[in-house]
């Protein structure tokens, strides 16, 4: 039980944290509240507490959102990005999953050396190779294509390592039983190994989605044609247009964030576990 003094300290602490969190969140509150206002109202409200309060619900409440969806290509950019994310999730589970399985369970030559190399590759920052990726994709004539955007993103040493760490603890006897059934190794991988490892498949999918959704540099290098843009690049091209109002800008950035919020609320447990485990494992 808390003593009286501890109780008082606790209440002060909670009050300070509450005040701090409101102050901390003021940009986000301002963004949400004003994404429903025309620019005149945003400016007029700036000086009072109304700057942090959404306008009264009326016929024009969603005007900024409606104009963004009807007057710009924004919805198309969102759909593009979802499509790229879906393709990359499937490919990265197959390619990195198979590699992780080989490193965990198949005793092929130089396996331990390959594992060492994969671990060392974790250190290399993407910035080291991104200009060369651009050069390779440009020389191959794949700029402004979906293939050119996706190819360099499929393989990921971190995902290979993640899969390997999970697969290594799978029981061997299931594999032996599967071989008696004349179950081919590849079929066994897709029908037994992946379904048994739902957590790591979910983790890789979530992080692949977030990477694709939030990435800025690589899509901005590959895509110049406006039909193929991802949401982040499209957002930038819309907000840097002179005709876009402040209210519309706030509506666009809110729209881009909604899918991520959905993902975080559905998978918050996996994400937080992922975040904390990288900390404790590495540390």
């Amino acid at each position, binding site marked *: 039980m808390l003593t009286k003094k501890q109780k008082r300290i*606790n209440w002060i602490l909670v009050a300070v944290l509450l005040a701090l969190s409101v102050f901390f*969140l003021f940009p986000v509150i301002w963004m949400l509240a004003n994404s429903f206002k025309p620019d005149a109202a945003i400016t007029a409200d700036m000086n009072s507490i109304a700057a942090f309060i959404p306008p009264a619900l009326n016929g024009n409440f969603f005007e900024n959102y409606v104009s963004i969806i009807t007057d710009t290509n924004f919805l198309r950019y969102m759909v593009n990005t979802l499509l790229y994310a879906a393709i990359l999730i499937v490919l990265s589970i197959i390619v990195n999953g198979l590699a992780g399985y080989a490193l965990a369970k*198949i*005793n092929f030559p130089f396996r331990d050396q390959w594992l060492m190399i994969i671990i060392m590759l974790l250190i290399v*920052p993407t910035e080291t190779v991104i*200009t060369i990726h*651009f050069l390779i994709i440009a020389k191959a004539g794949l700029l402004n294509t979906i293939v050119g955007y996706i190819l360099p993103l499929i393989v990921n040493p971190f995902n290979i390592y993640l899969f390997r760490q999970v697969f290594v603890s799978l029981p061997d006897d299931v594999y032996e039983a599967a071989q008696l059934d004349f179950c081919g190794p590849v079929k066994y991988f897709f029908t037994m190994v992946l379904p048994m490892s739902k957590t790591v498949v979910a983790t890789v999918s979530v992080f692949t989605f977030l990477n694709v959704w939030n990435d800025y*540099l690589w899509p901005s290098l590959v895509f110049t044609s406006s039909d193929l843009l991802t949401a982040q*690049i499209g957002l930038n091209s819309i907000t840097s247009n002179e005709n876009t109002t402040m209210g519309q800008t706030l509506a666009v950035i809110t729209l881009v964030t909604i899918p991520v919020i959905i993902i975080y609320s559905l998978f918050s447990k996996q994400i937080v576990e992922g975040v904390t485990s990288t900390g404790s494992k590495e540390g």
Partner: protein
Amino acid sequence: MKKKNSIMGMAFFGPALVLLTIFLFLPMVLTFGFSFTDYFALNPELTHFVGLENYINIFRDDLFVQSFLNTVKFVVIIVPLQCGGALLLALAINKAAHCKKYFKVAFFVPVVMSLAVVSTLWMQIYSPEGILNTLLSHFGISAQPFIHSASQALPSIAIMSVWQGVGYQMIIFLGGLQNINPALYEAAEMDHATGWQKFRDITLPELKPLCVFVFITVTIGAFRMLVQPMVMTGGGPDHSTYTIVYDIYETGTVNWEMGLASTMAIVFTVFVVILTIIQNVLTRDKEGRKHVNKKAKAD
């Protein structure tokens, strides 16, 4: 059996290996090789081997030196604020008996937003007639130029970056705090230890490996600063927010000077690798010491 294993192994590992070769091994070799040439991607026939000339020239190039110093400034502002802020938040939230869940979510919200979203939002926040200047005017502070002035742009972007990132490290520290064995605190309470003593002798030492991890990852993150200045200031005003990675990107993909860009990329990579090795050594050292201590006790 052995042969079957090597065929199967390569069949499983093969697809990844092909992609790793094209998009990691080859680019690493090319970056290293190009860094000793004057490779100009629009006219590759004229490429010469220039030895270490690029490595000397980039440090004589005012723009690269400035981008290097700017990047160091970003690191110097971001690292203490973000690491210290995350630790303080985690300690306070861990101690609070109410609204824990709300606090965790509230301080994590900016982490969820993308770099482009946060940058676009803060361009509005920092605008001359924007909400921040309006709020400041209530405290009698005159309007600040923020990202529109060469002296304030870098700190403004750095503080925004801390705002966005601090919740991530806070969650890591909270995980660490929850992993500390409560028996340690119970034992300390029996010895009538004060709150400060418990913090200094239990919490801090137990969190030390995590502090090293957070310190290095935040440092590397700040070192990679690019998207925020790209969206908000275009590296300006007067290149005051131009960073190393920005310079690599522009030299390589806008000016096509792959030789120079590769040299900068190698210098950048060396710094990142050194930081990662320091982290590994520091945390391994800790485990090593623990091991030695255990052994000493056993003897």
